[in-house]
């Protein structure tokens, strides 16, 4: 049965009909419809099931506050659960499915829980499921979880993409109702740059529906002309479909813009997350109507009075043929009049106030409506929807005095300013007794970086519910926001627009209908529709001592659903205050947190997905590695070749081949990721002596020295070769991961501690690629490239460096070795590195030259007993632990870490120290294994006396080799330790010298 009215619907375009489906059923609506209005128009009342009791649910609201009509939209890569039908714009082909039922929306098995609801009050699960103990994990929890959740999880990769957008702006106005428009105008007239955003597709907010007159025009006309004048101002920007999502400290605001949800188009970003740095923020977010608490208020057909009006006026849809209005204020009479005007039946207007004397009530009476003051609703007739209303006196315990046939209840409990965004960054509220709502307290605003107010509120968001006062407050807010910028732009805002409303009779707060409703009714009076929290639940919480509003929230889950209590919170805390006998302002609200409306995770991640998830740092030789089958290993943001398996070869075999080829011939390594820092100045020597544990000031130009760096806390943090370039210039190499960190730490010391020292540092890591050439034939290979300098044994001795050209590329050659072989590291300008690499490959082909990866590098260094930062060290290891005493200068008064290393525990003779480990059976010790000691400690844990830090199969020795830290290790050579292995026999290993290969270092000196 179509509920579409023959005429009306200011937002729909009847000339554009759109097909969509709901639970597989084909339906039609119009362009401009929301999914909710289109479903209502198709006569669909039942929209879903509630969270806990699977109660049948229909639409309550017409905006993002909707708790019930949540849908699964789309399919596969565009599937989205929990989409609000009320904010989902209709498009051709939209697919929607209702949620939280099985097997079907109409016949839901889970609805049993509704019948058991008296056994399932708030918090029942804290009191039950206790025995038998094992049942919790295996029976109870699985059962609870089965009923958990609302929508289905999306299972496919999202086919859409998202982006971010950063702006700085003087004034951001959130909310494009008449107040937002007025505030934006005032701020813009003052000369400020203004961004005005509105979450809906249309401007104007409530006023066009509510029918205010402004400056002598209809609301719609005024909105049109104001929009026009705003658009003509060069300092104003405007966006619809953009929600003010979160206000963060220092005026940082997130906006969530939906670009294609209303017209799917996958080549365009689906959402855009705006990061706004705003000088001032104006909240013109309007107000949200409150439901009333009466028995059966959750039946499909019970709606907010304003929503009923919205569906009629905006979409030309009749939520009901015969509506009962239940109200405690004048505003709902507008709904009555609107319905009447649209030719729809209004069975009665039940006004909980003893008298209904305002002009709107009079107009309703004049229109022949049945206005019944002092009345409320005792109950709802009907199961899956409203069939009738039982009327009672408000001031009673619910004795039914009448039953009215009705298919819709339009309820209004008054309006609560939408203060969420005001509160996000610390703005406080105060209670207004007259209007019975919390409104922003201008004396306690959220403050910005200067400690001054960073927000203003405008219009009904400020509590100025009626158009006249709303516009005044909005204009003032806009002026203030413009002014607060300090730098007056020499312009002045015009006058405030004048709004006129009908006079109003004051509302009368009503938190329960009827006032003396007995338990049975209170247990059926819903506060939080989605989470099934009823009046009786809040009362129970209070009775059980969950008196703090925060306890009550968490005990009952009030306000924790996807609408975050936009409808339920105030009603809930009013009930709590009643139960506690404390005034509402003392009870207070729970904390408002971002986002205002849930934000898509994809939008938060923005562009950072897939290839752009994180930067991949590439060396100048990266492409070659890629083309030659590199097996990658992430190292920081770099990707380094772990090994180069050739066709059919396992990674393990590749490593073995690379090691053997290097040891017997020559290997080639891309070492470009090593950090390279130039340190220069009259105080550079002194500075490096502080940074390194070694003495760097005594290094001769032309020479290199292996250096260690400790943190001020004494632990080894980095190592690398330092070369002295000239009298006052050093080049410090760091680990691949260490370059930026060590550079930053050098700057930190120079800028914050020794700022009078004359030292400059430059990070030239990326200027130079570094290529390692290692192996007995290394020199032969380099000589093939016609070096411009002498690379002979004497001319370029071990631990020396020289400049020159190699294969026509300008290079610096360091004779250093991490593999233990004759080895050169060649630094070349990054732009020419690939050419050099190619030339080396070519020249090396006859020599059997083999590129090797990081794992071969690691194996070779382990064979030599060289430590590796991150393997032998883990932030708790000192150079002394590693037997590196030779690299710790005794002659220096001070260096970073020196004082720390003097502390009691650091000099403990029982510290674990570095040794080699050799399994008795030649096997490879497991990574990270611990050596056990006798007995257990005070906490019953097995005692240990050492652990493996690096362990490899050594191709050179064809057996397992390892290094480890062992209690008094170096003093215990030859002793045998036992390393238990998970699920296996313990492995026994002997303590040996950690240098397994060429202990005398003859090869590197070749």
């Amino acid at each position, binding site marked *: 049965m179509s509920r579409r009215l023959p005429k009306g619907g200011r937002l729909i375009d009847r000339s554009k009909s759109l097909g969509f489906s709901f639970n597989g059923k084909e339906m039609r609506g119009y362009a401009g419809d929301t999914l909710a209005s289109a479903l209502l128009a198709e006569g669909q009342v039942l929209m879903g099931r509630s969270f806990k009791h699977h109660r049948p649910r229909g639409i309550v609201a017409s905006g993002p506050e909707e708790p019930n009509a949540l849908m699964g939209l789309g399919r596969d890569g565009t599937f989205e659960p929990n989409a609000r039908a009320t904010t989902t714009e209709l498009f051709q082909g939209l697919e929607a499915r209702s949620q939280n039922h099985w097997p079907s929306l109409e016949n839901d098995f889970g609805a049993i829980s509704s019948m058991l609801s008296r056994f399932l009050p708030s918090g029942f699960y804290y009191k039950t499921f206790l025995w038998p103990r094992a049942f919790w994990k295996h029976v109870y929890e699985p059962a609870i979880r089965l009923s958990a959740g609302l929508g289905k999880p999306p299972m496919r990769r999202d086919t859409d*993409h998202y*982006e*971010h*957008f*950063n*702006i*700085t702006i003087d004034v951001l106005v959130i909310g494009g109702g008449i107040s937002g428009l007025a505030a934006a105008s005032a701020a813009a007239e003052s000369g400020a*740059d203004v961004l005005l955003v509105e979450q809906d597709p249309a401007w104007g907010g409530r006023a066009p529906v509510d029918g205010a007159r402004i400056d002598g025009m209809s609301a719609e006309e005024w909105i049109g002309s104001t929009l026009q004048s705003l658009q003509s101002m060069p300092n104003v*920007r405007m966006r619809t479909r953009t929600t003010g999502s979160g206000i963060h400290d220092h005026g940082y605001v997130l906006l969530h813009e939906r670009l294609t949800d209303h017209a799917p*188009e996958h*080549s*365009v*970003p689906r959402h*855009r997350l705006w*990061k706004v*740095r705003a000088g001032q923020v104006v909240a013109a977010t309007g107000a949200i109507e409150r439901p009333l608490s009466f028995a059966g208020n959750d039946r499909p057909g019970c709606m907010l009075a304003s929503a009923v009006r919205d569906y009629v006026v905006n979409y030309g849809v009749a939520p009901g043929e015969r509506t009962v209005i239940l109200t405690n204020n004048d505003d709902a009479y507008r709904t009555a009049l609107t319905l009447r005007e649209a030719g729809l039946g209004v069975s009665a207007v039940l006004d909980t106030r003893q008298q209904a004397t305002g002009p709107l009530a009079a107009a309703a009476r004049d229109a022949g409506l049945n206005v019944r003051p002092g009345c409320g609703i005792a109950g709802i007739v009907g199961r899956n929807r409203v069939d009738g209303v039982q009327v009672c006196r408000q001031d009673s315990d619910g004795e039914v005095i009448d039953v009215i046939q009705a298919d819709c209840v339009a309820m209004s409990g008054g309006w609560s300013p939408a203060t969420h965004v005001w509160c996000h960054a610390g703005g406080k509220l105060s209670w207004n007794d007259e209007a019975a709502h919390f409104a922003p307290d201008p004396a306690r605003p959220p403050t910005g970086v200067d400690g001054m107010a960073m927000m203003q509120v405008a219009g009904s968001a400020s509590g100025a519910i009626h158009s006249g006062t709303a516009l005044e407050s909005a204009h003032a807010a806009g002026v203030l926001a413009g002014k607060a910028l300090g730098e007056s732009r020499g312009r002045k805002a015009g006058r405030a627009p004048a709004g006129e409303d009908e006079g109003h009779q004051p509302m009368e707060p009503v938190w329960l209908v009827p006032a003396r409703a007995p338990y049975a009714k209170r247990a059926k009076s819903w506060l939080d529709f989605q989470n099934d929290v009823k009046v009786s639940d809040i009362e129970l919480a209070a009775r059980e001592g969950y008196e703090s509003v925060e306890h009550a929230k968490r005990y009952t889950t009030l306000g924790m659903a996807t609408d975050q209590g936009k409808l339920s919170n105030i009603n809930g805390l009013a009930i709590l205050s009643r139960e506690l006998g404390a005034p509402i302002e003392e009870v207070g609200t729970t904390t408002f947190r971002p986002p205002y409306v849930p934000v898509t995770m994809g939008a938060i991640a923005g*562009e*950072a997905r897939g*290839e*752009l998830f*994180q*930067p*991949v*740092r*590439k*060396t*100048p030789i990266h492409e070659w590695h890629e083309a030659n089958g590199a097996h990658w290993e992430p190292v920081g*943001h*770099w990707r380094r070749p772990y090994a180069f398996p050739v066709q059919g070869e396992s990674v393990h075999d590749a490593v073995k081949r690379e090691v053997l080829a290097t040891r017997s011939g020559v290997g080639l390594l891309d070492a470009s990721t090593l950090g390279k820092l*130039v340190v*220069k*100045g*009259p105080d550079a020597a002194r500075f490096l002596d502080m940074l390194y544990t070694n003495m760097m000031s005594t290094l001769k130009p032309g020479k290199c020295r292996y250096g260690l760096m400790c943190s001020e806390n004494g632990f080894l943090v980095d190592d690398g070769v330092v070369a002295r370039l000239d009298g006052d*210039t050093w080049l410090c190499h760091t680990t691949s991961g260490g370059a930026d960190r060590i550079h930053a730490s050098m700057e930190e010391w120079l800028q914050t501690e020794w700022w009078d020292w*004359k030292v*400059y*540092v*430059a990070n*030239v*890591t*990326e*200027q*130079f690629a570094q290529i390692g050439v290692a192996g007995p034939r290394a020199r032969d290979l380099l000589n093939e490239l016609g070096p411009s300098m002498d690379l002979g044994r004497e001319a370029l001795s071990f631990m020396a460096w020289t400049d020159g050209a190699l294969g*026509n*590329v300008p290079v610096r050659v360091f004779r250093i070795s991490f593999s233990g072989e004759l080895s050169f590291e060649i630094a070349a*300008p*990054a*732009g*020419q590195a*690939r*050419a*050099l690499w190619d030339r080396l490959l070519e020249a090396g082909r006859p020599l059997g030259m083999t590129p090797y990866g990081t794992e071969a590098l690691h194996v070779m260094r382990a064979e030599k007993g060289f430590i590796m930062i991150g393997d032998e060290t883990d932030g708790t290891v000192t150079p002394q632990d590693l037997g590196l005493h030779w690299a710790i200068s005794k002659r220096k008064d001070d260096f970073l870490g020196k004082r720390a290393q003097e502390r009691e525990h650091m000099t403990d003779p029982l510290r674990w120290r570095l040794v080699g480990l050799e399994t008795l059976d030649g096997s490879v010790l497991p990574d990270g294994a611990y050596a056990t000691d006798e007995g257990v400690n005070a906490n019953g844990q097995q005692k240990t006396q050492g652990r493996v830090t690096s362990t490899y199969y050594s191709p050179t020795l064809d057996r397992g080799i390892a290094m480890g830290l062992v209690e008094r290790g170096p003093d215990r050579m030859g002793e045998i330790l036992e390393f238990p292995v998970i699920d296996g026999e313990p492995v026994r290993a002997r303590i040996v010298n950690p240098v397994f290969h060429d202990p005398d270092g003859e090869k590197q000196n070749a």
Partner: protein
Amino acid sequence: MPDSFTPLDGASCSGFVTIKDAGLTGMILLRADLGAADVAAALTGAGFDLPGSGELVGGLGQGALWMSPDELMILCAYDEAEATVATLAEALGELHALVANVSDARAVFRLTGEGATVREVLAKLSPADLRQNALPPGRVRRTRLAQVPAAFWFGGEHEAVLICFRSVAGYVFDLLSKAAEPGSEVGHF
């Protein structure tokens, strides 16, 4: 230097903004106390114009960017970088300074587009205030581009130059290309 190549080797991408590898560029890092009169005299004496705080003089090929109170980036032709390093070193003589050729350490992009579209593409990735009056031609901004450091300036209203580290050139190129995809214009500035 015939062997030299830029990390993106001439790549370009046309969306609503065109992103192009700006090619080989001479870049020299100079660290010295820019506020010291002797440093300023030495540099101007050798023919270098000094930009004020946050500014640039000249542009790619010849110019200088203000990087910090004690750091400039001197721009010159790629082939002249070594010679310029020598000139600078000579001019500064015994003064406390550090000069290094970093022409190969960075990637340089040219971004061109109609109206304020270039600002828009950058605003998708950088937190910098990109309003015209906050970053007019003649000023340079060092900032963050998504997850990496970058610097950029506007040559004119429709053109910007962006510099980032060499190793992340591919990442930055992909970021910019994505941000400039037709259909994702924002229309804000």
